[in-house]
């Protein structure tokens, strides 16, 4: 290993003020293993005590499903498209929302939790908020078992639309990455930003068709409603898992557009602030 490499072979790195990282994507690729290791570490820690880890991923959506079924289905008498059992409707909305909400909560804190890495090591900072998404994805897989079980209980066979599921997962991934980039960078800059996040999560739960279907929203409000990036994800998820429901072309495209906007602006904001992270964290 110590055999001398001719000096010409060394890549020269120039450090200047406000110098953008050269070859950003190549740099990211070079650090792909660190990304996987960080994600693996967080998954490992979370599921270290297996029973509690799994129970947490399963119990939360299950309880919310029961509550929402009672509040929206029984008391609110909200319609269920295609006459589907209400718990199925709620669960199919709950899973993608929970995924997004977890990413918001943990993504915003991710850089602070890894402050020692940020202040002592060089690596593309974006790895940290991105690896949070992987952990939530594993959570989603675990709680997905619940969905499978529930489908079996109601004897609901998967339809051909289930093939579109990966597409909506991808859309959900894009939305949560965008949110994670924004929130992690903002939390480093404004330390009390994290107090805003529980509120956003609370509010978002009701601004997203989790406990009800988009069909319950009056027609004229739908364009506004569709600006929420998670509306497309949740409705698409429901549509492909349950085989019924409304998947309005307009709602989906508006929601997809805001998702992509969230991802792009999040990425750019992160890139523009990351150079100061080590000084402010």
């Amino acid at each position, binding site marked *: 290993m*110590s055999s001398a490499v001719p000096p010409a072979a060394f890549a020269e790195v120039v450090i200047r003020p406000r110098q953008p990282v050269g070859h950003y994507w190549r740099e990211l690729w070079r650090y792909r293993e660190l990304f996987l290791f960080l994600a693996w570490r967080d998954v490992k820690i979370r599921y270290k005590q297996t029973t509690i880890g799994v129970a947490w991923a399963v119990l939360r959506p299950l309880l919310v499903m029961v509550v929402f079924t009672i509040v929206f289905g029984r008391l609110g008498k909200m319609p269920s498209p295609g006459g589907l059992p209400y718990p199925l409707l709620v669960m199919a909305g709950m899973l993608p929302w929970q995924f997004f909400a977890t990413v918001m909560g943990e993504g915003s804190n991710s850089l602070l939790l890894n402050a020692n890495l940020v202040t002592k090591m060089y690596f593309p900072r974006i790895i940290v908020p991105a690896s949070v998404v992987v952990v939530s994805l594993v959570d989603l897989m675990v709680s997905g078992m619940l969905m499978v079980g529930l489908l079996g209980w109601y004897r609901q066979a998967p339809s051909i639309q289930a093939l579109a599921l990966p597409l909506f997962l991808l859309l959900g991934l894009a939305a949560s990455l965008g949110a994670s980039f924004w929130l992690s960078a903002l939390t480093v800059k404004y330390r009390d930003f994290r107090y805003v996040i529980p509120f956003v999560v609370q509010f978002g739960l009701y601004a997203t068709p989790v406990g009800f279907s988009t069909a319950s929203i009056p027609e004229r409000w739908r364009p506004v409603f569709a600006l929420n990036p998670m509306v497309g994800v949740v409705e698409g998820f429901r549509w492909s898992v349950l085989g019924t429901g409304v998947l309005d072309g307009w709602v989906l495209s508006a929601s997809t557009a805001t998702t992509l906007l969230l991802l792009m602006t999040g990425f750019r904001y992160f890139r523009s602030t990351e150079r*100061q992270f080590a000084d402010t964290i």
Partner: protein
Amino acid sequence: MSALAISVENLGKRYRIGASRERYLALRDVISSGASRALKRLSGHAKDRPEERDFWALRDVSFEVKQGECVGIIGRNGAGKSTLLKILSRITEPSEGEARLRGRVGSLLEVGTGFHPELTGRENVYLNGAILGMSRREIATKFDEIVAFAEIGKFLDTQVKHYSSGMYTRLAFAVAAHLEPEILVVDEVLAVGDAAFQKKCLGKMGEVAKGGRTVIFVSHNMGAVENLCGHAILLAEGRLLSESSEVRRTIEKYFQAASGSDDVATEWKRASDGMVHPAFTPERFRLCDPSGATVAGAVRNDDAVFVCVEGTVGMLDPALKVGYSLYSENGDLLFWTLSTDTPESNWPRPEIGRCDFVSAFPRNLLNEGNYRLELNVSLHYREWVCEPGKNAPAITVAVRGGLSESPYWTSARPGCLAPMIAWSVSRPLGGPPA
């Protein structure tokens, strides 16, 4: 003739110190100050923002490092050493100037960055390796070497939280030591572990340097810098004070600069609200000369100097022990001395009210250097009043000169002590008569 590995030109790093002295902003403050400014503007009382002060942690620093050179960076705390390392390892960006690095940079600013207590030793080796920039394959091929170097053997699959601190540091250093970048940036990592392991680490560092790699090494351990480095850079208050391949000379300059510095505080006084204790409340802790005046600046090794602890005795407690702990510049504990070290009949007997505990500072014992005295007051085996390393007030004594009158002994010697011990000559018993 050999190629440059690092060239640094006019490098500078500025920090903004706001009026709030906080490093980060609070959304609440941004909103409220924005609102109040808007209100003031409306009412015609436009006023500027609170003064922000610029602080240059590093300024106008230029130097070059050849390939395969081992460079030591020395300077007092706050001289900008860490800032320089952080810029070179691309953790933070400079405010002006530029640095060019030729080769892969591996930085080691802390031992065990990213170690997770819940993971096993094996898992942490892989995780830490990835954080340091090694590939999984690279770690796998060196894995056995790393484990052997760390001497943790059968604890490999135990969670790191169950490790002793020695095992922890050994493992962490072992991973780092097997990093093989072209340029290695190291900050003060040798200040850890027991003596044997420190020696092993130093040996490894020397090996790395001899293996043709470029090493940048920050340390307060002048002995290590002198042994390892062929070039030294002295920083003071963010500026480059001296740069030379005569490492010894640069180290001497460092000591000269340190002796005139203000971090040699020879007196401590109690803040009005701090450290009150019913048995003994320390009021003042200082070094003084035989006339009772506080010593300012450095002392000679043969000066008569006294350590004086003034305090208020609130109640008489036979368990009261007053003394101090002496630390070397590297933070090594040299000794404790307490008022109760002698036979009980000789103990000082304080009375209620103001009392001074005085002891002569040992002469002809310490080498040149800066030493820290921490107040050590407790009620024997019951309670700490001032615990060294925890809450104890500290003062510093700088020992300069006066080591010996001997014509053969003109400068500081190796070692942290420089005792003067008399020698005599005698003939072996039963030897031939004179």
